[in-house]
């Protein structure tokens, strides 16, 4: 039986009357990458924080939280000493340079100076920051800062790496580099837990995905299964506002699901020919026929409208 690095059962967190995390249960197997997907305000960050003791969960008798064999309420230090955390903000010390930033954290993990220097040299090389070792934080680009925060979280060779939106706001090059590094870490036995709202990211690096909305688990499975189970294979997107009777064509009478928004109509179906035939009749209209992706699943699960927390 594969070992679980994280076991969470019936986890709750409320802020006043608001239920930020409600009855959440999930398990993360060792050496896998587990992704939390959800809109802003879904409660993803709160879950991460509760796992390493930065946030206190509601006290309930049937709640179980076990991270690397420990309960964060009872032994946050054990968990923290074996994990690395990359938070949303790049909270680096601006006054110090790259190496000094890392040295401070080496100290937190009790590394002696020679071991610390060796580890820092290795981490800077791993995240391709060696050339910037002596640079001030102010001189770094957003992507470099992010990589430095990741390097910092790897200081203790963590068994579990928690990343809260690791690639938000980064350019594609850096994003791909980070994905690549996360793949490498997983190969070496690191278990990864991350939150994101980039579907592509979840699809690329996660072995399992949990979609969260308003504090609750909506669905959880491998990305491939989520796609297969929850959305048709193809989507035809038609741009522009059309009257409803345009879509009352015979091709669309069966096996096609229609979703209408103001300026975009989406037609979902497993039958690509049916969609293509309909598209060919749309003279002059802008359309795009594509495979459905995780974003379609996500939007279907969490709805297209915004709520007051987004």
């Amino acid at each position: 039986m594969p070992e679980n690095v994280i076991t969470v059962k019936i986890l709750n967190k409320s802020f006043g009357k608001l239920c930020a995390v409600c009855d959440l249960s999930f398990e993360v197997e060792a050496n896998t990458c587990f992704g939390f997907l959800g809109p802003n305000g879904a409660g993803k960050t709160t879950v991460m924080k509760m796992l390493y003791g930065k946030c206190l969960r509601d006290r309930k008798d049937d709640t179980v939280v076990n991270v690397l064999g420990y309960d964060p309420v009872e032994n946050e230090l054990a968990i923290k000493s074996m994990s690395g955390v990359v938070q949303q903000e790049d909270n680096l010390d601006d006054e110090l340079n790259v190496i000094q930033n890392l040295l401070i954290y080496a100290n937190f993990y009790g590394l002696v100076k020679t071991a610390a220097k060796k580890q820092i040299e290795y981490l800077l090389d791993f995240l391709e920051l060696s050339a910037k070792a002596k640079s001030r934080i102010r001189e770094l680009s957003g992507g470099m800062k992010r990589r430095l925060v990741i390097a910092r979280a790897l200081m203790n060779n963590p068994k579990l790496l928690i990343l809260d939106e690791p690639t938000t706001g980064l350019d594609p090059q850096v994003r791909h580099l980070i994905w690549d590094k996360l793949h490498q870490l997983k190969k070496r036995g690191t278990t990864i837990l991350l939150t994101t709202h980039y579907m592509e990211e979840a699809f690329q690096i996660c072995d399992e995905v949990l979609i969260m909305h308003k504090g609750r688990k909506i669905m959880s499975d491998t990305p491939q299964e989520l796609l297969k189970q929850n959305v048709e294979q193809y989507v035809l997107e038609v741009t522009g506002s059309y009257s409803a009777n345009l879509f009352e064509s015979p091709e669309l009478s069966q096996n096609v699901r229609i979703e209408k928004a103001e300026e975009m109509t989406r037609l979902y179906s497993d039958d690509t020919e049916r969609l293509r035939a309909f598209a060919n009749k749309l003279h002059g209209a802008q359309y795009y026929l594509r495979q459905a992706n995780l974003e379609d699943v996500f939007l279907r699960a969490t709805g297209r409208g915004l709520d007051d927390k987004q």
Partner: protein
Amino acid sequence: MTNNNTPNIPPLWRRLYSVWYRHVRVYTRNMFSNALPPFLEPLLFLAGVGLGLTKYITSTMQGLTYIEFLGTGLLMTSSMFTSSFECTFGTFIRLEFDKVYDGMLAAPITANNLIIGEILWAGSKGFFFSFAVLCILTVFGIISLPHSLFVPLIGFITGVMFATLALLVTSFVKTINHFNFYFTGLLSPMFFFSGVVFPISNLHEKIRPVAEVLPLTHSVRLARAICTNRYSASLAGDFLYIILFIFVVGFLAVRRLRRRLVN
């Protein structure tokens, strides 16, 4: 679930030291702008008062000339102010703006470790700032060595004492501008009514008990006793006051501030 994970948790001293070390590294990064002012400020004060005011103040205060009286008081006000700045504005910025604490709390330290490390750091600044004043006073021959060399230790406990109070205030503050009330409302009056610029025996007898309650009064007495090498039994009471203050206010500060760090 089997548990074959053996965590490598640094011991308590190491965790406190890590927090302290972080602050030392950040502070010493700008040596010139951070380490010069503590020396310049007393210099400015003594120059202004010494050149101008002393001419008019001919009477002695508790057996000291005015410049001696004021100088020995300044040893403690510098500790008070540096520690108070560190644990109000400094702490608030680390907490709310820079999110430095969030990062630190991902490392194997607890919120309590972090807050106590913070207090020890403020104490160290109190030590250093009173040492700076000590240097200036010695150079100008206002106090004499070697007995005065112990005064930075009082600077340390004064720094610790005001750190606990500042952190308690910080635990209530929602926007950074609120600290202005603390500085003008409490610290500035303390500067004038704790026996720094004139003896509290000159205060109206109804106000005098108020001065006795102010923490700075007790620090100043201890510092002055050390510099003049004149000790009395009542100093034990001053020392006790400070220790008690540190534990009571420190306890409250840790408890309240922890809730802002771990929610």
